[in-house]
């Protein structure tokens, strides 16, 4: 019995071991997958490359590893499966991941096995934002329909008001004629509500004082309102969601397909600008991804816009047309006198994009999430701590603060409120 019990234990340990390792591998695999693969692959749907669900069933592990490390070599070796695969996907070249270790590729496979089917719609292809998506974003200012409507309503109110005044006067004069003709019908004369209740109070006031206090009240209220208005409205474009020349959806790309922000906004860690990607970047994927399934076998009109911009002819597969730059509408506008550097915040400060731009991965139409006012910047500078321990630049000053017994230093304490940090 004892032995068999021990055996059972050993066996169960064996049985459990894969479970534990898998749990760890899946975590790691997920990270690796998101970092390296999502720009071209999804588990459950075909993007640039094939859907990876059951890839382990289609090919053995050794083959997959060889393929991932250098797919071109596999194709060159005239492996029939590889050649067929390449042909199927327009011979788009898969990036060689020579730096990935075998174990890492295995963990990616482990993740693929367990990856859940996404809850949202699993349609492939970008673009083609439907109208409900557009309305999901808060409506921006500058809607022509709104202001026309307002004008119509105002006009209507004016006409109706005029009519009611006219009717009132007609009624009054009719009553007057009636009362002169039949005085007994006239109501009993007595002090009205105004004369009886209000006027005695009013007549007691000093006129000058009353006027001045009334004026002061008015001025105060006006200023209060004006100040608030100026503070929150003038030049503030919170919620600004202009229509863009291409109905590009961050929700599909960053949300559904989990493409890293930096894949497109590649300069965000190097430059002050995150920069809008050039359409040639879009072509990396969209040379293959055409969302034909959504448009009855035709290429999505939004994707066609990219082709037009770069001068690509999808039929001949040649870049022979004229290039036409895309005029995107800038959403986040800082005034010229404010200097903002993305690399300082993203690379050095390690701040997630979402902190300022909101849940961009859920936005079909991008809108300005925050006010971008100075107070908003300052608030964050006051709250955020500088990660001094992990950057050698801060070595000296960190030592000074440590000597003073300060464990945490906020951006503000470290000079983050200096005017010349942003204004020069």
């Amino acid at each position: 019995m004892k032995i068999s019990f021990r055996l059972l234990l050993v066996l169960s340990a064996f049985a459990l071991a894969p479970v534990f390792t898998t749990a760890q591998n899946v975590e790691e695999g997920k990270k690796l997958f998101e970092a390296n693969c999502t720009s071209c692959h999804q588990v459950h749907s075909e993007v640039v490359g094939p859907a990876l669900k059951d890839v382990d069933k289609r090919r053995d592990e050794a083959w997959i590893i060889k393929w991932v490390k250098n797919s071109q070599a596999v194709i060159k070796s005239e492996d029939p499966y590889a050649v067929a695969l390449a042909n199927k996907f327009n011979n788009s070249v898969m990036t060689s991941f020579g730096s990935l270790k075998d174990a890492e590729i295995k963990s990616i496979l482990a993740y693929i096995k367990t990856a859940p089917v996404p809850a949202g719609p699993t349609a492939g292809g970008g673009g083609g934002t439907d109208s409900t998506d557009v309305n999901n974003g808060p409506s921006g200012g500058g809607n022509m329909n709104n202001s026309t409507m307002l004008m119509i309503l105002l006009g209507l109110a004016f006409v109706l008001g005029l009519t009611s005044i006219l009717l009132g006067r007609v009624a009054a004069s009719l009553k007057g004629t009636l009362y002169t003709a039949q005085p007994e019908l006239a109501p009993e004369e007595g002090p009205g509500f105004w004369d009886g209740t209000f006027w005695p109070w009013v007549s007691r006031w000093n006129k000058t004082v009353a006027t001045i206090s009334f004026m002061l009240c008015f001025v105060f209220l006006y200023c209060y309102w004006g100040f608030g208005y100026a503070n929150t409205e003038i030049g503030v474009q919170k919620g600004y969601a202009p229509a863009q020349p291409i109905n590009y959806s961050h929700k599909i790309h960053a949300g559904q397909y989990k493409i890293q922000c930096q894949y497109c906004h590649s300069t965000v860690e190097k430059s002050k600008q995150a920069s809008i990607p050039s359409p040639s970047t879009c072509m990396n994927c969209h040379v293959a991804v055409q969302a034909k399934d959504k448009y009855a076998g035709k290429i999505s009109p939004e994707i066609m816009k990219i082709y037009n911009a770069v001068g690509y002819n999808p039929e001949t597969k040649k870049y022979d047309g004229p290039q036409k730059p895309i005029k995107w509408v800038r959403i986040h506008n800082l005034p010229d006198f404010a200097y903002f550097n993305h690399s300082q915040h993203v690379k050095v400060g390690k701040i997630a994009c979402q902190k300022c731009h909101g849940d961009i991965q859920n936005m079909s139409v991008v809108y300005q999430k925050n006010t971008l006012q100075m107070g908003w910047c300052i608030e964050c500078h006051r709250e955020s701590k500088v990660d001094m321990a992990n950057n050698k630049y801060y070595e000296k000053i960190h030592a000074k603060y440590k000597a003073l017994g300060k464990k945490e230093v906020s951006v503000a304490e470290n000079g983050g409120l200096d005017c010349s940090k942003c204004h020069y």
Partner: protein
Amino acid sequence: MENQKQYWRGLEELNTSPEFVSNSKNEFMEGLPLDEVLNENSSTFGLASNRRDFLKFFGFSIGAVALAACNKAPVKNAIPYVVKPENITPGVPLYYASTCGACSSGCGILVKTREGRPIKVDGNENTFNKGALCAQGQASVLSLYDNDRIKSPLMGTQSLEWKKLDTDIATQLKTIDGSKIRVVSGTINSPSTQRAIDTFIKAHKGAEHITYDAISSSAIIKANEESFGKAVVPSYDFGKAEVIVSFGADFLGTWISPVEYTKQWVENRKLNKKKTMSRHIQFESNLSITGSSADMRLPIKPSQQGLALANLYNRLADINGSSKLDVQQFELPLDAIKNTANELWAKKGACLVVSGSNDVDVQILVNGINTMLGNYGKTIDLDNHSNQRKGIDSNFDKLVEDMNSGAVEGVIFYNVNPAYNYHNIAKLSSGIKKLKLSVGTSYNMDETAKMVKYTAPDHHYLESWNDHEAKVGHYTLTQPTITRIFNTRQAQESLLIWAGWENADFYTFIQDTWKENFGSDNFVTFWNQTLHNGYYIKTAGEASAPSFKGTVKAETITASANTGGKGKLELMTYEKVSMGDGSQANNPWLQELPDPISKVSWDNYAVINKSTADGLNLTDGDNISVSTGHGKIESIPVLIQPGMVKDTVAIALGYGRIDANREAMKKESSGKNAFVFRTSRNGHTTCLSSDVKIAKVGTGYTLAQTQTHHTIEGRNMVKETTLDRWTADPLSGNKSMSHIVSLWDEKDYKGHRWAMAIDLNACTGCGSCVIACQAENNVAVVGREEVLKGREMHWMRIDRYYSFTDKNKKKSTKEKEIAKNVDDFENVTVAFQPVMCQHCTHASCETVCPVLATTHSSEGLNQMTYNRCIGTKYCANNCAYKVRRFNWFRYFDNDKFDFNLNNDLGRMVINPDVTVRSRGVMEKCSFCVQRIQSGKLSAKRENRALVDGDVKTACQQACPANAIVFGDRNDPNSEISKLFYNDREYSLMTDDEKESSKEYFNTLKASLKPEELSNVARSYALLEEINVKPSVKYQVKVRNRKDDSIKDELDLDIKLAKEAEIHHAREHAKHAAQDAEGHGKEEKHGH
């Protein structure tokens, strides 16, 4: 206790003229004419307004503003590249190594581009200019964006197609015999361009190439040919010379290769590592920046130069025992020539004599002197010679003759402008008219372009490919930094096409030249490496000492000396550091840069000595006509210039290009062309006129002179000493008056603390920093009218102070005494002092700003926040250094200021990292905070500490004299912290402060070598007595002059200074004690 010397900036300050006094009382020379506007009876503005009008205007303005504020925010577009170029990252500058094309010196440069447009030009560290660049080079980037450039090929003034132009020219070339074709170019030191010209010449048998320099060194080349058989300009090494004697050669400002020479010169002038410096003696007629920086400056008339040199030759021959020249005896006051000869002889083989003369006999004489002194092979190198000047004047003179006689029928003017700068324009013009074919490659609509039949406009050098060999073995490349802006074509390609080439591609042409010269093995790697670096330097061979076989013609020297007699008026022309030969006359930055000496912007003028002017009954503001046998200027303003030699008139070249300048500039500048006075003398173009006639033709013209703007009213700004005094006592000339008691709490700067130090000993006043600052910080050009009102916007000004030499063993301190010494207006010493915002630790501007627009940063910067500023100008009123500049207008959007910021092309030069300031805000030097921020960010991104030198300000980077040091004074390893090291400061700290900064001081003290300590002792702050604790320190100017006559006074000075210091310390100790008990009677302690 103050320095006994009196410093003054201009005669109006010296004589305390009423205008000067009234202007100095106001921070702004002109207030707002509110009274005029609001006065009912005023007619100045034709407004005749009254209170009601005022209310109307007021109401209207408010209404208009309210309405304007209702505007919807404009829709802004963001347009990415369709295909992003691999190496361009939006927002990150990209640098290209290239070669400066502003003059023929060929300095290596780095061009800073942003999103494909060049915005700044700086020196390349590895070429002979060692990272520095002159004002003209700095400004050359703006000439690229000149809206007046020729925009397409032209026939006359009609534009035409390139194809048509090429066929026209080809057909016409065929009709002309090859021997009647000439190519005229400036100095060509590019092997490939030379090969292109040679190709053209080969295709047209018998054609010739003529080199024409507007301002040539043709006499030097001829003299070297006659003396040594080498027709070249030698390489000089002012760094190896311990005694430098210059006869009218402005080698720090304009002569041949000024940046290279300044870098060399300053090696032996900086006192940071050693206690010796070179001795520099300058004999010259007009005051140049080289003369200003010399230890001894001796005014001589232009005609006397040869004679002075011949006498120097004889003095040396006396010592040497060789044969003497038969010339008349000539000596200057203080036995200057004899003493110079002795000093030179003492440093035989380690000295240098140069002359700026374009007289071949004078240059042979100079060669003779240098041979006698054994300088060849040591400070002068004829083997690794310079290629920076190649023009021979007589060749072009002959061409003009040939053009007129019909011996030449076709001329191609390759980037030269003789129609402006040739000495006989009438003859040239008639010659050009007689030509069958005249082609120019001018890049803007200059005088030559207007005269020739065809213009095939060349690219700007920032759009071109080229190579250079400015000095033997010193190769640099030029590469395009922007696609061509207009329909222009590289002139070399034009030449090749006219030589019959079908596909002329100058890029492959250069590569072919290089393959020929350097072999084609491994060429791609070699080429890419060279293109990346911008230079390829072959190790120089040993310089030989060739034997002198020239003969000095004593009689010609005597003859030219006789042309000018005592009291006879002479005329000379000179170059300004800003304008040079005038090729960049359409560049508003250069036009507005105040001349380092006269501080005049926008104009040239007739420079005259005070006593001469008095004799001629002339004064500042008079207009005179000047004529010689060769030319005439109808009307030119007079400028009385201290330091100018008597009986001589000097006029700057490069001005008067009225027709070539854009509208706005025409209005501003009334300069005149002085090239008309030049003439050919023995085959070399020079201006040596004796029959000068001057007549007063008008009065009342005011030059836009900035010399007394921003005056500090005679307070001691400049400190100086002599080498002897300084060696004896490092603190000499620097008697600190720093207070110890302060109203303010000292702030603790935990991170960086930015600071700057400026070595007055090195600064030559060349103005390169001013233009570098203007380019970096988008400083507006305001025009002559506004400069007259004292509204120039330069963040950095270079104050120029005159003082008298102690010739009479007495110091002239009072006006009465000065009046007596009117003679001495020939003999002034000059000190330059760059002044920008001092970033005071306890800044007086900060406390008065009602809206906190100017505040102090945690890194010691005095910050100016434009978007907060409401324009009260209180800060400018309160600034002791007068460094704040107010935007009176929207200079970038106002047709009245149509310089460079008012058209889209000109705006391309704007640095996108710096705000363009709007009307109504104050601005000032920011210590290039954008560079600080970007330097810090790079360090953070790369996860490393910031190292000294990571952050350089624009002025520091541009300075050819290494006069500016900038850095973090909290970093004990930085150069700047050493210059701020102050023993006294530490000893006066409280115990707590001592404890916290003990480590810093100890590290610093340990790192300071003894010889550096005496250098540090030269540091002082401006107006220390007001105790604002500036973050800029200056270092006392040290002159290497042996003035024994004032030795006694010197000793007394030192003694008094030491006593005063002890007294100060005692007083302050007492003071502190009183403070501790309660507030002492501070009034009693005036210092």
